[in-house]
């Protein structure tokens, strides 16, 4: 966090994340909610870029922002008639929600910030992994190789495809 530029970028991204997250779960229009989600995800991608994980940032944008949000939008379109998606919330539930969320955040925060190693950590200028290394690692079987998870996730995706097909088929 040495440069002011970084600070500014960080601040923008952080504020975007926080604001968009809050808005995403409080807005009354479902489509807006999806939009705020998109911005939150993009802001997250900014974080990744800032941390020099460009590949991850790209994936974040492509898969999350590009894929999932579109999926959401499709789903919303399929299930909502425009203009009729205001959802009233009971206050009772809201306080419960806030309570749970705050409690969770507090516990995690206590846990994280009591962790000494973390407080003194600095963003070191990391070795910039290029895309080739990442690609190799994904197909490597040695230490820090990810061939098996890679294969496994392919099976997972296959399963999800079949599952999706099963569910979505009309009969």
């Amino acid at each position, binding site marked *: 966090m040495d440069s002011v530029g970084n600070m500014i970028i960080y601040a923008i991204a952080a504020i975007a994340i926080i604001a968009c997250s809050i808005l995403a779960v409080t807005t009354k229009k479902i489509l807006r909610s999806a939009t705020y989600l998109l911005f939150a995800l993009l802001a997250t991608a900014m974080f990744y870029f800032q941390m020099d994980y460009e590949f991850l940032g790209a994936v974040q944008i492509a898969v999350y922002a590009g894929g999932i949000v579109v999926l959401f939008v499709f789903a919303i379109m399929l299930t909502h008639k425009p203009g009729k998606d205001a959802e009233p919330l009971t206050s009772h539930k809201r306080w419960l929600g806030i309570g749970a969320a705050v409690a969770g955040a507090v*516990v*995690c925060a*206590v*846990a*994280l910030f*009591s*962790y000494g190693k*973390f407080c003194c950590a600095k963003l070191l200028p990391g070795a910039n992994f290029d895309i080739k290394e990442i690609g190799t690692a994904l*197909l*490597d*079987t*040695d*230490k*820090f*190789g*990810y*061939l*098996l*998870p890679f294969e*496994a*996730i392919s*099976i*997972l995706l*296959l*399963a*999800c495809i*079949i*599952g*999706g*097909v*099963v*569910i979505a*088929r009309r*009969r």
Partner: protein
Amino acid sequence: MDYSQFLIMPQEIGLLVVFLLVFIYDTFMPDRCQKALPTFTTALFGLYTVFSFFPVHSGMAFAGMFESSDATWAMKAILNVGMLLVLLQSIKWANSEFVAVRRGEFYELLLLTLFGMFLMVSARNMLLFYIGLETASLPLAALAAFEKHHYESHEAAAKYMFTAIFSSAILLLGMSFVYGLAGSFDYMTLASALSDKHSALLIAAVAFVIAGVGFKLSLVPFHLWTADVYQGAPTAVTSYLSVISKGSAAFAFLVILVQVFGTVYAEVWKWMLYAIIILTITIGNLFAVRQRNLKRFLAFSSISQAGYIMLGIVGANVLGMTSMMYYILVYIFSNLGAFAVIAVIERQTDKVTIDDYNGLFKTNPWLAFTMMIAMFSLAGIPPFAGFFSKFFVFAGALKTGDTAIYILVLIALINTIISLYYYLLVVKAMFIRQDECTIPTLKSHWSEKTGMILCALGIIFIGLVSCIYTFLNGVSENSSALFNIGM
């Protein structure tokens, strides 16, 4: 790059081969052959199960990401047996009117989830474990939604799905904390890195991991989805969820707790598990007492059974591990026995409440008999296997020897009485109560019969024949290194 490492996982590969064959059959065979698909799959899987009994080479692969040991081998064999039983019971159902069009997918998904479970069992890396877990749970949502003509099926799927994603978020949170603490996902590395007993982060990590896996095991308070899903999902899926999915999760859970968090056993997770076990057993029982729907009833009973399974883990010793695996095996037979009967009756009469079973013994003595021994086994009544498995998990837990665990076991034992009460309610309905509209005499399909006979034999003989337990103990002994890492 050493692709020969894949050879260390013959069971997984075999499973994938089965999957592929089924997939090909489903895709390319003409329609008139499709009706034989369930039988084909079952037969194939039966062959594969036999194959999976052959011992495998022990060892690590993929830089310690994947472990194949006697214990994982045995565990997978146990899961295979359970899977085979589930398949046997579902043949008739899969060919039924509303399901027949999707039977191929049904089997494919089942096989893929089983693959996920194998990964969970063998994973020695958080990443692989996570992928395995997700592979094991996501397709199940699709399976839960399988009976599209039933509204409950959809509700069950939605509930399952949402809870599953939520739990995976919690699990990921826990894993991220673990990663933050140790900088690795490898169990072995983690075990040595996580030794600070007073780290709040570690405690939070343990809690969240337990919560995440607790979802699969349906431990209280992470269990609330269970009953609704079990009730809504097709019976074949429910039985699968209640035994196979639970069994694999329990084993993986044991490995994670012991190997990764072994160093903080006494300070941290022992007490967490105490609380969870007491809650799980008690709440599960209390809910089960009131149930009239048998599937829902078995859901709550399976929650409380999960508590007993956890007793095998809480001791964190070889005896406990053996007992846990044994418990799972017995539980597979007992629970599947019960589900087999439910499935037969539900398929033909659509009746699933206890009151519908009044006087079942008069009309369907063998169904009633199977159900009864299943109930007795679940309740832990000798000479049925459930008695032995319960005794052994208690022994495994008590082996740790501290006083608190005696209290824990005492509470568990008192709960066995409540559980006995509701299991007896089923027996009472079948044998003692009379009703005007008793279920008529039913004819079971050969596959259902085979399944039930296998279950009954298992329930009767697994306990009496000690070699299974002894064998599992030998297997666990070989993995006893697991318990030395952390502690």
